[in-house]
């Protein structure tokens, strides 16, 4: 067997392994989606659920599954996918697992703008999403400009992002505290993220965003991977560096903003999805699609746990936050111990 054959078969084998891993996660997502449609106060079998989804009228199930559980599950799926894809884009581009949009304040910007649009301006969902997108872009730009000093150092960007996030969180707290009544479900959604009270109308902008921006990000996946070798090397390999970077950032920020406008800043999904996907999928390929799937699985699973595992019902953000924070601590300990520069 010639060297070329060895290389080719190895490459085919590895890309098949990556595909299998991604398919495995996808199966998990489908299973979690199906379970969230079936489980509830009344259990409906797969047959009934399928009939409702296909548009038939089933007494009882049509309302419970079609009107309550289906929008909620779809919202969880879309939010998780959007956050996962956007998070891993940031992490890949800045070479740092900590540079995820929920830690450096981009999500906080979207959330502050969405709360302002809802509580103060009383806008409807489409305009709220638009507000969130503009604010998230402005926040990302502000963080970039503030941390620019003879080039952007990753550490400085993260610390400045943490500062900006703290400020924006207090804006959210103020807007909510000053709202006419301390409306608990709304407050919880905007403080930690929740998929409660999902409706088709709130879902629509996010669905369009995922369908448009998701493929845009995936189209940049190969170039983004080459960027990891450094700007010069990537340019030598034929990547248009600035174009790739700008398109990826715009698409990722857009996804974050639409997801946040629909479900609030669901804690730590953007941060967790990339590293988890990297553990499951063999190295060598782009992580954008696997991370999106992992994100969807995280949100669907966390919502199931939050709704049914305890006496009280918790919004999804509490569960992802409680799982994500220990992982963040673990990541810090591990990086510190290996002496890596964060």
């Amino acid at each position, binding site marked *: 067997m010639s060297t070329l054959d060895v290389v080719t078969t190895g490459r085919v084998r590895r890309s098949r392994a990556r595909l299998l891993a991604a398919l495995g996660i996808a199966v998990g997502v489908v299973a979690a989606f199906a379970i969230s449609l079936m489980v509830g106060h009344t259990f409906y079998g797969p047959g009934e659920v399928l009939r409702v989804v296909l548009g038939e009228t089933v007494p009882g199930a049509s309302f419970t599954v079609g009107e309550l559980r289906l929008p909620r599950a779809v919202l969880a799926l879309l939010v998780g996918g959007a956050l996962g894809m956007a998070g891993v884009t940031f992490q890949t581009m800045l070479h740092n697992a*900590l540079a995820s949009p929920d*830690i450096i304040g981009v999500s906080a910007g979207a959330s502050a703008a969405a709360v302002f649009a809802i509580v103060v301006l009383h806008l409807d969902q489409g305009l709220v999403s638009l507000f969130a997108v503009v604010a998230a872009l402005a926040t990302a730009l502000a963080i970039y400009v*503030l*941390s620019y*000093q003879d080039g952007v*150092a990753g*550490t*400085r960007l*993260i*610390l*400045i992002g*943490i*500062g*900006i996030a*703290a*400020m924006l*969180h*207090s*804006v959210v*707290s*103020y807007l909510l*505290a*000053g709202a006419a009544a*301390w409306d*608990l479900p709304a407050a*919880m959604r905007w*403080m*930690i993220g929740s998929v409660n009270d999902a409706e088709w109308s709130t879902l629509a902008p996010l669905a369009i965003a995922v369908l448009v921006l998701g493929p845009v990000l995936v189209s940049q996946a190969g170039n983004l991977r080459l960027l990891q070798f450094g700007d010069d090397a990537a340019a030598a390999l034929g990547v248009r560096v600035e174009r790739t970077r700008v398109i990826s950032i715009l698409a990722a920020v857009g996804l974050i903003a639409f997801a946040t406008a629909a479900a609030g800043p669901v*804690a*730590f999904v953007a941060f967790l999805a990339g590293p988890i996907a990297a553990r499951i999928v063999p190295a060598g390929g782009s992580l954008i699609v696997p991370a999106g799937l992992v994100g969807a699985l995280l949100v669907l699973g966390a919502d199931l746990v939050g709704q049914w595992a305890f*006496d*009280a019902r*918790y*919004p999804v*953000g*509490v569960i992802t*936050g*409680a799982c*994500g*924070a*220990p992982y*963040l*601590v673990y990541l*810090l*300990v591990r*990086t*510190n*111990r*290996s*002496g890596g520069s*964060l």
Partner: protein
Amino acid sequence: MSATLAPPSDTSPSGTSAHRRTSAARRSAWLAVSLVVLGLIGVASITFGAREIAWSDVVSALSGNDETLAEAAVAKRIPRTFLAMLVGAALGVVGAVMQGLTRNPLADPGLLGITPGASLAVVVGMAFFGLGSPMGFTWVAIGGAAVAAVFVYVVGSIGRGGATPLKLTLAGAAVSAAFTSLISAVLLPRIDVMDSFRFWQIGGVGGATAERTLQVLPFLVVGALLSAASTTGLNALALGDDLAAGLGERVVRTRVVAALGSVTLCGAATALAGPIAFVGLVVPHACRLLAGLDHRWLLPSCAVVGAGLLTLADVLGRVVARPDEIDVGILTALIGAPVFIAIVRRQKARAL
């Protein structure tokens, strides 16, 4: 001893005794000026609020009358002002001690997860163990602050380079995020009491009563004394552990005393006012410009300026959003975060 340990400004080539005297005079002058400003802010805090009050009413209320509505409002603002000053002073001192102790310009009890730790401990105590008395709050808050402080320091100092500002801040941010999630998880099923608990998520001084403040006061005094006892030690620590030990300073003892002092102050302040971030970060940086690097001058100066800042933030919160109020914890974050960013920008990337 203390002369050789005095900070750079005093050991400059012209550091004669005459120079030291003038510098002491200058610092006393600054301290006096900040005390006067604090007094003015205190008067403003009693005068301004949701309701406009005439000067004559303020005077008559201060002399003990509370018959008219205006006088009653003033009587209610006095404990609030007192509380804001105490909490602000405590947080300012905590920030200075922690920045000295960790040699970290970004140290702040809120950012490092210590106040969220105290807050979580109080919320858990209220929800599961029927905690109700201010005394109980304070002990539990101090316990929670201590556990959080040790945890964050251990996580942040693992690995090469020890506890660098970046590692400590990240560990603090991670721990704060975890605590905040847990606070929400504990609070959520208890919707009926959520409104009074909300205070433990934002931080404010609106619910002040004189009795509660007086009950927590002994803890603040003990914490302040411990911090005061560590001042010369902190000056030595600024030279680095090895040099400080070589000069005869007992490094471990200084660390323990200073840590106990700041955790006590921080826990007591959180028990009184909930989690308030950024005061401990901003105040020491401002005070170093006025009072220099010597902790014996820095701590009193931080106490006065911290008290002034928090009281001023409280007054602003009452005046800006009339007739509503902005919780003081929100305003301090809005004022403090830009300062935090400015400090980060000034550091060299490698020093982080």
